[in-house]
């Protein structure tokens, strides 16, 4: 064979070594999604078989040679109802099942570790909470739910990991999230699946799934020295956010301590839960997100902070457990080590000042 055609031989051996019908199942959701996939596949195959059998069978039985005389039949309400109701029922099962999967893929569990991913033409940049950066890669441990908070800096991108069966669009101007829990170590594809311009097909990377121990080592090996929250703290100070957002009784802005996860009432009466998306919006479009009791005086930071900067700020505010930290940034320019902040917080002084309208 190899004498006849080396190219063909190469091709065949390639096929045999690489042949796969399904991508690896490397996340917790993958088998669940595959189960639904195989269910629909089964229904499709049965449906297709029925149609083909009908077509071939009738063609053979009623070909002109065998059946020269056509019998005129009007139709059959019973049959037609049958093939209306049965597909409808099957489709509804698929809908419900699919909706459950969809619900799971887009509802992160409470203990998920958050990783920010910024998409830009044409690369993925992942930011781990400890300050580690991944370019066109994502390092994650097994056995730990990972929530990915996505944002795009320019156009629509789509964050797709086929082995995990997850995909989510990175949208300019808005956070979206997806989560997964990797189950098998290895290196998997990371694709951008939404067409995003010239370098679209170069916007690919590797998802490296490691054991928790390896992950820890990796974290230590690639640390940049300061966490996202620490970067955010510095940015918070340099933008003078603390001029208003402090806990003093005459503060012009609400205290941000413990604001993450709380329920706020806005000046237009709307009730919101403070999450990453809300914090981002409140920084960039403050007047639509004024806490009740305050004036809409905050300037917008649209166009002044990069998406990474916003992420740093969000991460800082998330970890802002008391206004003590705000005071510290007001008074000192040096950064407190993480542990000291924690200790200070334990010391009390955590009551947030009630909101007041500045006269």
């Amino acid at each position, binding site marked *: 064979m190899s004498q006849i055609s080396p190219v063909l031989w190469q091709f065949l051996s390639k096929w045999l070594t690489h042949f796969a019908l399904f991508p690896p199942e490397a996340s917790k959701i993958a088998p669940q999604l595959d189960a639904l996939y195989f269910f629909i596949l089964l229904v499709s195959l049965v449906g297709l078989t029925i149609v083909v059998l009908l077509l071939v069978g009738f063609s053979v039985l009623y070909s002109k040679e065998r059946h020269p005389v056509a019998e005129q039949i009007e139709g059959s309400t019973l049959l037609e109802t049958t093939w209306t109701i049965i597909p409808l029922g099957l489709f509804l099962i698929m809908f419900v099942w699919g909706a459950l999967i969809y619900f799971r893929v887009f509802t992160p569990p409470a203990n998920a570790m958050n990783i920010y991913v910024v998409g830009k033409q044409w690369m993925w940049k992942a930011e781990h909470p400890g300050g580690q950066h991944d370019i066109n890669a994502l390092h994650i441990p097994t056995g730990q739910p990972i929530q990915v908070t996505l944002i795009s800096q320019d156009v629509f991108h789509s964050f797709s990991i086929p082995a995990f069966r997850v995909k989510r669009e990175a949208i300019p101007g808005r956070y979206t999230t997806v989560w997964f829990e990797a189950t098998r170590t290895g290196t998997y594809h990371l694709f951008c699946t939404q067409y995003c311009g010239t370098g679209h097909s170069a916007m690919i990377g590797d998802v490296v799934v490691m054991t928790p121990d390896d992950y820890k080592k990796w974290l230590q090996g690639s640390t940049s020295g300061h966490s996202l929250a620490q970067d955010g703290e510095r940015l918070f100070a340099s933008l003078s956010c603390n001029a208003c957002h402090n806990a003093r009784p005459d503060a012009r802005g609400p205290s941000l301590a413990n604001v993450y996860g709380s329920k706020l009432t806005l000046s237009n009466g709307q009730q919101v839960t403070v999450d990453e998306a809300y914090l981002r919006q409140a920084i960039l479009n403050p*007047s639509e997100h004024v806490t009740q009791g305050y004036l809409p005086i905050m300037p917008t930071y649209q166009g002044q902070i990069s998406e990474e900067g916003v992420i740093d700020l969000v991460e800082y505010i998330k970890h802002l457990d008391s206004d003590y930290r705000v005071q510290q940034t007001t008074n000192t320019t040096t950064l407190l080590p993480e542990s000291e902040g924690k200790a200070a917080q334990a010391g009390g002084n955590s009551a947030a000042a009630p909101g007041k309208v500045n006269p």
Partner: protein
Amino acid sequence: MSDSTAIAHGAAAGTHHEHPPYLRHHFESVDQQTDASNFAMWLFLLTEVMFFGGLFTVYMIYRNWYYPAFSAASHQLDVMLGGINTVILITSSFTMALAVWCAETRKKSGLVAMLVVTFLLGVVFLGIKGHEYKEKWDKHHFPGASYSVQAFVNPASDPLQVNAQGKPLAPLAPDMAARTEMYFCLYFAMTGMHALHMLIGMGILIFMIFRARAGAYTEGHSAYVNYFGLYWHFVDIVWLFLFPLLYLINRH
């Protein structure tokens, strides 16, 4: 039907009785022709409804998102001018309806007069609209690089940013003030599309005035005037929605 080819010549030679010149060859009767073209005109207007429907969808979404900006920006429009324009357009619609009536009752001079009046009212409408556009342009309220939010962050500097009692409106926060550009995007897109429809209509009106002076439409076949009337009334209806939606936000 099998012998159809045999008599092909007889039918094609045209043995139709009563064949008015405006009856086209593929219709059986004038009624059928009028019915069909009238129906077609309505369908065309329905495509227009969907076209403006897309714009109204965009308007609806952004007005909900940026209500303060829309409310403040709409104060830049002159209700007086808008109201006058509405009345002008309604009047032109009325004269157009009279033109249809004149054509149907075969009053040639009445038809010409009504078409001319309709045309002139259209000119006045567009004149006022142009004046309004110019005002926006001069104040840098045309969307684009030179857009200015001055009037909205500092309403005291702008005589138009006042409420019904004449007191200055509250200033907008800078980020919300920037959203007023969205309002003007939609303002220009929607009124611009409306004005474009009027321009097309007025082009057809000129054509019809000349034909009417030559005696067309008043000799029993007035359908064309009727179809144009439908178009003109439709353009009028669009304005009846644009006026309150763009001019009358939060005027109290």
